[in-house]
């Protein structure tokens, strides 16, 4: 940083709140689980859609090659 520029810490609004480390750790423990559930649900829906179309639409339309 150029030395003649003010630090953002000069403004009280830019200074981070006090963090409760225990609470932060508790939240951070849940974050990967939530991400996994969200991504898992999205991928499961996509895979289910693919399987349904493959089995119920593509295969009954007959052989091709």
């Amino acid at each position: 940083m150029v030395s003649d520029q003010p630090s953002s810490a000069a403004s009280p609004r830019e200074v981070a709140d006090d963090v409760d480390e225990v609470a932060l750790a508790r939240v951070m423990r849940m974050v990967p689980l939530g991400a996994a559930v969200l991504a898992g649900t999205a991928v499961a829906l996509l895979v289910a859609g693919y399987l349904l179309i493959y089995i119920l639409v593509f295969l009954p339309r007959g052989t091709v090659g």
Partner: protein
Amino acid sequence: MSDTHPEAHERWILQTELLWAFGVGVFIAAALGMILFTALTMNVNPPSNVERINPKTLHLAGEFAEHNLGTAVGSDGRVTVRAIATQFMFLPHCIAVPANRPVTLRFASPDVIHGLLITGTNVNTMVVPGFVAQVHTEFTQTGDLLMPCHEYCGLGHSEMWATVQALPDNEFKPGPDGRVSCAKR
């Protein structure tokens, strides 16, 4: 896992990622297995046929001459359809095929790239000048099916379509020369 041990937390995240990777691996293996299974047991494959033909002369003689277009049943009972995709029509305009019997479709183009699909079936191919597009299939339904050109081929592209008449066995009657025309309706 403990709040006081970030290493344990990171280990747990790594385990989650490995579990995810394992799940993705299982899905890819299942999808590939399904494709392989249907390919081996049901002959479901991407149509692939590299067979050259001269687009300048294909209408003059040989397989795609006018008298040879349409549906033909060979002496061995094999059903073969030959058609030309040209600006802006399919020749013939109506193609008769039997339902629930193996059919070989062969297409050629004398001018530009065309494409076709037959609605309600898995038939879908490009017709590239210089090559014969070939698709093996079996029609699982009867009735009139629309076969439009699905590759933009010029100003009349939207008018380029044909009808595929999938006939039940008792209506699919080859003539003495083994040729079958569309039933009049």
